């Protein structure tokens, strides 16, 4: 399969399945355009001057310290052009996306969001959804291992924690990752739009089998999701042992992200 791809297809990032991933792709391409412009300028200078002022073509160097007013002006203009032309531009774009979208948390009291607790461990991802009672860390919670299923078109809010070393929950198809840190809950929200099956990886070095810390993400249409949820709940209730303390690794869901540093509830 790989051989049939063109070079550009080969180096393109994974398919974007999220509502806002295109913002990151846009900023990347925007920065690339500006970078190519400035790097071409550098190369014109580098290769052009190397050719023109080879000692064979230009035996006598022009004596200057580059401290004439015009020289200082040119260097300053280049410095400021790069700063305003690239840096301020991309910083503004990135900052707007970051504040306006990526950390603009959905209001859970008003919006219908899907809540997921994620616990990283060496070398697997545990996912927990609240179950029918809507309360986390109770016996009807739907707990899955390396298997995350969410509906398309709805905001999914993750609260992420690790029980051993630092991991990083990485959705290549949504262009996002957030570290899973022991003793500190981190958050992320993503809206997945395109149904299908995708990879979840761990992006932070977490030990020998870091590369195998792979989970699957299934995005369903809403009705398929509801169907799966009901079926999974049934199976879960049948096999779940409420006496088993091991199933209560979750924590109280602090609404609207009023969490920072918490211990795990029993």
């Amino acid at each position, binding site marked *: 399969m*790989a*051989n049939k791809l063109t070079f550009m297809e*080969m*180096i393109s*990032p*994974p398919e974007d399945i999220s509502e806002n991933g295109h913002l990151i792709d846009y900023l*990347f391409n925007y*920065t690339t355009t500006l*970078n190519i412009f400035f790097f071409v300028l*550098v190369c014109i*200078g580098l290769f052009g*001057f190397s050719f023109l*002022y080879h*000692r064979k073509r*230009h*035996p*006598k*160097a*022009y*004596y*200057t310290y580059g401290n004439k007013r015009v*020289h*200082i002006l*040119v*260097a*300053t203009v*280049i*410095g*400021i*052009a*790069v*700063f305003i032309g690239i840096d*301020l531009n991309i*910083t503004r*774009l*990135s*900052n707007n996306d*970051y504040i306006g979208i*990526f950390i603009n948390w959905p209001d859970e009291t008003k919006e219908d969001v899907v809540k997921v607790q994620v616990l990283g461990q060496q070398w697997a991802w545990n996912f927990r959804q609240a179950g029918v009672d809507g309360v986390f860390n109770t016996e009807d919670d739907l707990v899955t291992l390396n298997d995350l299923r969410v509906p398309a078109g709805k905001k999914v809010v993750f609260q992420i924690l690790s029980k*051993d070393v*630092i991991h990083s929950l*990485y959705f290549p198809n949504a*262009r*996002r*990752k957030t570290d899973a*840190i022991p*003793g*500190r809950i*981190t958050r992320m929200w993503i809206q997945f739009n395109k149904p299908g099956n*995708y*990879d979840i*990886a761990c992006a932070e*070095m*977490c*030990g020998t089998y*870091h*590369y*195998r810390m792979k989970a699957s993400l299934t995005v369903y249409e809403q009705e398929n999701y509801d169907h799966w949820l009901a079926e999974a709940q049934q199976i879960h209730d049948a096999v779940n042992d409420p006496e088993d303390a091991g199933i209560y690794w979750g924590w109280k869901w602090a609404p609207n992200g009023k969490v920072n540093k918490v*211990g*795990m509830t029993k």
Partner: protein
Amino acid sequence: MAFYEQHIHPKPTTFLSKYIFSYDHKVIGKQFLWYGILFLLVGGLMALMIRWTLAYPGQAFPIIGHFLFPETGGAVPPDTYAMLFTMHGTIMIFYAITPILIGAFGNFCIPLMLGARDMAFPLLNMLSFHLAALSGLILMASLFTPLGAAAGGWTSYPTLSTLIGSPGVGQTLWSLAIFVLGVSSTMGAVNYITTIITLRAPGMGYFDMPLTIWGLGLTAVLNAIFLPVLGAGVLLLIFDRVFGTTFFLAGAAATTGTGDPVLFQHVFWIFGHPEVYILILPAWGIVSDQLSFFARKPAFGAKATALSMTSITVLSTLVYGHHMFTTQMSPLLTQTFMTLTMTISIPSAIFFANWLGTIWKGSIRFHSPMLFSLGVVFVFGLGGLTGLYLGTVTTDLYLHDTYFVVGHFHYTMAASVLLGGFAATYFWMPKMFGTIMNEFWAKVHFWITMMGLNGVFFGMMLVGYGGMHRRIYNPFIYEFTQKLIPINTFTTWAAIVMGLAQIIFVINFVHAVFFKKEQASDNPWEVGTLEWTIPSPAPHYNFKDIPVVKCGPHEFGNPNLSGGKDYQYQTEELA
């Protein structure tokens, strides 16, 4: 301007006092050079094993694989793979680049270019090398401990680097080795700073120093300030590992009390970001000088270049948070670090303009050091610009911990610094060893290295943009990395080509040092800085009479010069 008399002691006569326990800055510089080249080869071999595994996971490493990993039939096993990339990073940064650029050329160039007979503290200088040797020994020994060497990445984030993730003694030895090396480098840094302040030749103001010395001096300042921070960090890590403290343990992992693993990241990157500039500043200085030397033209805006490097030094201490965007710092901190990071491009753009200004209307001689210096301009341009994607927080959320980061920092730290180190080696060879290296093979070495490293590091950035994350043993178990297999294979072969090209360098170097009969002249490159006013190789105590400096280091093509020379020694007065 020298503050005190510099005495001349008799030459050492025994082998030990001459080559092992030498106070002579030139000998210590050479010790660091050999040490660095040795570790460069070890680290390079590790890089090839890493690359091989990424292209052909599970297949035997050619030639030496069966000998090194007999139990897997020659293939690198996953736990060894983690040790390899951890040790590769550690070795290249602390045991190859630092000793070559700072240890070797810092020691060698600072007194010679300042017109001094030795460093301010020769004994401290000797101890600095011996501690570095001890540290290297500890690090290498850790490879032979029962559970093997450290395997938590060169950043060694807790809690992976605590007993929870790394129970073996290797990680403790790693921390100890870094601590000892930190002491060694701090000693060196204090020595460099003192020497630059007190031992400049009479008449030499700070702006009369070559830009190489500016780069080395600023590096020393950063080293002196920030290496103790790293030392403190790894010491606390050792406490956590050996004495059961919980500075960096938290959550389910902490048995008593509670610390914070993110604290280590702060401590590490407060040091770690300046470290990037610690490595690159000497190379910038060397390149700024050599572009002027070989373009036969004064360095364009030398004062502005020096001040730009200084402002980057200051700014580098204020931006470290961009390494931690994914740990979810407060939005205010995130925005602050993003904006501060971006301001670094102002001074960078200014000295880039000055570099191009230096070769503008010059009369360029394309000797091997010049080729390598121009190479630095090219690769650092790429490395610097690709940093922008990682400085803006939203693109970083995608690219963080992918091969894009790996490609980017290899362009800035590995490619630029390596090329700068080669430029320095080819350039100062006559003054160090009294011979000149073969120019033809030097150029062959340059072109193959240049093509190889661009293949490797650009390939890394491509797969990183494709989403492939770092530090994975087998990238092909993911759906989204399948299509990146051909690029990974290409990258590996580029790395092999680049690795093989270094054999040319080693042969050329060893031949010039030990076997070449033909002596180099005192000033083969026709340059006016102080080290070229004395014989090659530099004699015992360098300067019989302390020189008096009368002009700057880049006096080329001055129309008032007479006598057929187009350059002027720093000791000469203009007519």
